[in-house]
C-alpha cells in the first residue's frame, strides 16, 4: 500500500479503542480495512499496546485542548469542568474526518458539547454561555469562506440607495446577530488581560449584537444594536426592496421608524454589514 494507508490505520488505532483491540488481537476484518503490506501490518501490530493506551489518553485531552483554542476566554473560566468531561466528550464526538482545519472542527464539536451544559447551569457561571457563543461566532465568521465572499459582495455593492422601491439591501453569511443576556463584550478585554471575573449581572433586557466580518481582512467586528436595528438587519435578506423592509418595520414599530431606519441602513452599509443591489424586477 502506501504511507497514507499506514497513517490512516495508525490514526484509527490511536483514536478508536475498540478498533485498536480488534486490530492488535488479529481480527482479520479490522486488519484488512486499510490494504496494508505485510511489513506495514507487522509494524502496526507490533506497537506496544500499553504505550498506545497512554498515548490515546493524552490524545483525548489534546483534542479538547485544541478545540478550546477557539475559546480561550471560556476555557479560562471552566477549565476544570472541561477536564472532568473529556472522556464523555470524546465518546460523543469521535474524530471523524472533515475537510476543514482541525481547530475549526474541534471548536464546533466543543461548542456543541459544552455550550448546552453552560446554558443549563451544569457547569460554570451562566454568563460564560454568552461568552462562549461570542467566541464561537468570532471563529466561524473569521474562518468561513462563505463569510469572506459575502463580506466582499456587501462592500463592493452600490453606494447610492437610488430608488428605494428597487434597491434591495442584503446581508449574508458574513453577518450574525446574537442575543446576549450578559454584558460579556464589556469584560472580554479584562479577561484577555488575565483579570479574574467571578460574576456578571444579568442585563435588564437581552441585548442584540451584530457581529460581522469585514471585507478583505480576517477581522470580525461587533456592535450592540437596538431591537429595531436587529429587526432591520434580519429583514434585509436580499429579497425585499428598501420600501418593503420599511413596511415590515412599520408594522412592528409604527410610522416613526422610517427616518431612523434609513439612517441605520446607511450606517450599516458604510460599515460593510449590508450590501445593496438593484432588483431586476420592479417592485
Amino acid at each position, binding site marked *: 500500500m*502506501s*504511507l*497514507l494507508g*499506514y*497513517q*490512516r490505520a*495508525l*490514526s*484509527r488505532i*490511536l*483514536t478508536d479503542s475498540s478498533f485498536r483491540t480488534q486490530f492488535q488481537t488479529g481480527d482479520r476484518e479490522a486488519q484488512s480495512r486499510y490494504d496494508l503490506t505485510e511489513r*506495514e501490518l*507487522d*509494524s*502496526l501490530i*507490533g*506497537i*506496544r499496546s500499553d*504505550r*498506545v*493506551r*497512554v*498515548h490515546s*489518553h*493524552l*490524545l483525548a485531552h*489534546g*483534542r479538547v485542548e*485544541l478545540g478550546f*483554542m*477557539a475559546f*480561550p476566554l471560556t476555557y*479560562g473560566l471552566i477549565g476544570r469542568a472541561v477536564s472532568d468531561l473529556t472522556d464523555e466528550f470524546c465518546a460523543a464526538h469521535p*474524530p*471523524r*474526518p*472533515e475537510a476543514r*482545519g*482541525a*481547530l*475549526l472542527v*474541534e*471548536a464546533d464539536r466543543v461548542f456543541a458539547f459544552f455550550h448546552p451544559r453552560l446554558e443549563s447551569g451544569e457547569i460554570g457561571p451562566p454568563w460564560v454561555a454568552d461568552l462562549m457563543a461570542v*467566541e464561537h461566532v*468570532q*471563529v466561524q465568521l*473569521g*474562518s468561513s469562506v462563505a463569510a469572506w465572499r459575502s463580506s466582499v459582495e456587501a462592500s463592493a455593492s452600490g453606494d447610492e440607495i437610488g430608488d428605494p422601491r428597487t434597491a434591495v439591501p442584503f446581508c449574508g453569511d458574513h453577518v450574525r446577530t446574537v442575543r446576549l443576556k450578559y454584558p460579556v463584550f464589556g469584560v*472580554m*478585554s479584562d479577561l*484577555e*488581560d*488575565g*483579570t479574574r471575573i467571578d460574576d456578571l449581572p444579568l442585563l435588564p433586557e437581552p441585548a442584540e449584537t451584530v457581529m460581522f466580518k*469585514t471585507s478583505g*481582512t*480576517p*477581522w*470580525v*467586528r461587533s456592535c450592540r444594536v437596538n431591537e429595531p436595528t436587529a429587526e432591520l438587519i434580519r429583514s434585509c435578506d436580499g429579497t425585499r426592496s428598501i420600501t418593503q423592509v420599511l413596511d415590515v418595520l412599520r408594522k412592528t414599530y409604527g410610522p416613526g421608524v422610517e427616518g431612523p431606519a434609513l439612517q441605520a441602513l446607511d450606517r450599516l452599509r458604510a460599515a460593510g454589514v449590508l450590501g445593496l443591489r438593484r432588483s431586476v424586477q420592479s417592485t
Partner: protein
Amino acid sequence: MYNDLPNLGVGLGYRLPLHQQTLAARDRIDFLEFIADQYLYGSPERTERLLALGEVWPLVPHGVGMSVGSATEVDGDYLDRLGALVEQSDAPWFSDHLSFTKVPDTDVEQLTPLWFTDETLQTVCRNITQVKRTIDRPFLVENITYYFHLPGNDMSEAEFTTRVLEETDTGLLLDVNNVWVNSVNLGFDPYEFLDSIPLERTVQIHLAGGDYVHGMMVDTHGSPVHEPVWDLLDHVLERVEPKAILLEWDQAWPEFDVLLAHLDRARAAVERAQSKMGGR
C-alpha cells in the same frame, strides 16, 4: 549557517492567563513565542493584542497543526493564514513539529510519531519544501515526544531527523526536554542522540518540564525543568550557539518568579558555555 538570524536571547511561551505578569516582567524576558494556531482563526482584537506585544518583544510563531509528516500535502489554506501571521508579526523565523497530526480519515490532532522509512522521508521533504516555497521566512522543525516505537523502521530517529534537515536545508528547533523524555520512556542515551544529529543547525531550543502519568514521563509543560534536562542543555550549549532559548510552561503555573528564575538559569547556562568556549 544561520549567522544572519538575530540573537533573541531567552524567552517565554506567551500564554494568555500570564499576560499581565508577562508584561510586568518585560525586562527579564527577551522574546515571546506564541502558538500560531490560536491566532489563525481567532478574532481580530485578539490578534491585534498579540501583535501589539511585538512593540515590546520579538515575536516567534510556533505551530502545532501543519502536519509536515502527513502523507498528503500540507493544507494550502493553513499555510496562507500562517504566512500572513508570520508576515504581520515580523517573525525572524517560524516553526512546527516533525510529526503528523492528520490524515484524510481522521484528525488525530496530536503530534503523532512518524514511521522512519524512506517513503516517509521523501514525503516530509516534499512537504517542507512546500512550506518553504509558500512562506518566505526561515522554517524550523522540532523533535517531538512520543511514547511508543513504530517497529520496522528503515532508520533511527536521529538519522531520519538528520536527513530531513540536510536534504531540505532546514533549521532545527531542538526540544531538549523532548529528547530527555523520549530517552526515559524509550530507553536510549540522550547524549548519544544529540551527538548524532546536526546540532549546528540548531536555531532555537525549547525547555519544559514533564510529569509522570500512568508510569510514563509525559511532556506536560506543567512542572519545573528537570535537572537532567539542564544537563543536556549544557551539553548542547558547549557545542553550538543557538539564537534563542525558550521556556514552555502551559499549565499548573507556579508563582511567576519561578518562570523568571528558569529564564535566568538558562541565561546563565549560555554565559557559562560562552566563557568555556572562549567567548565565541
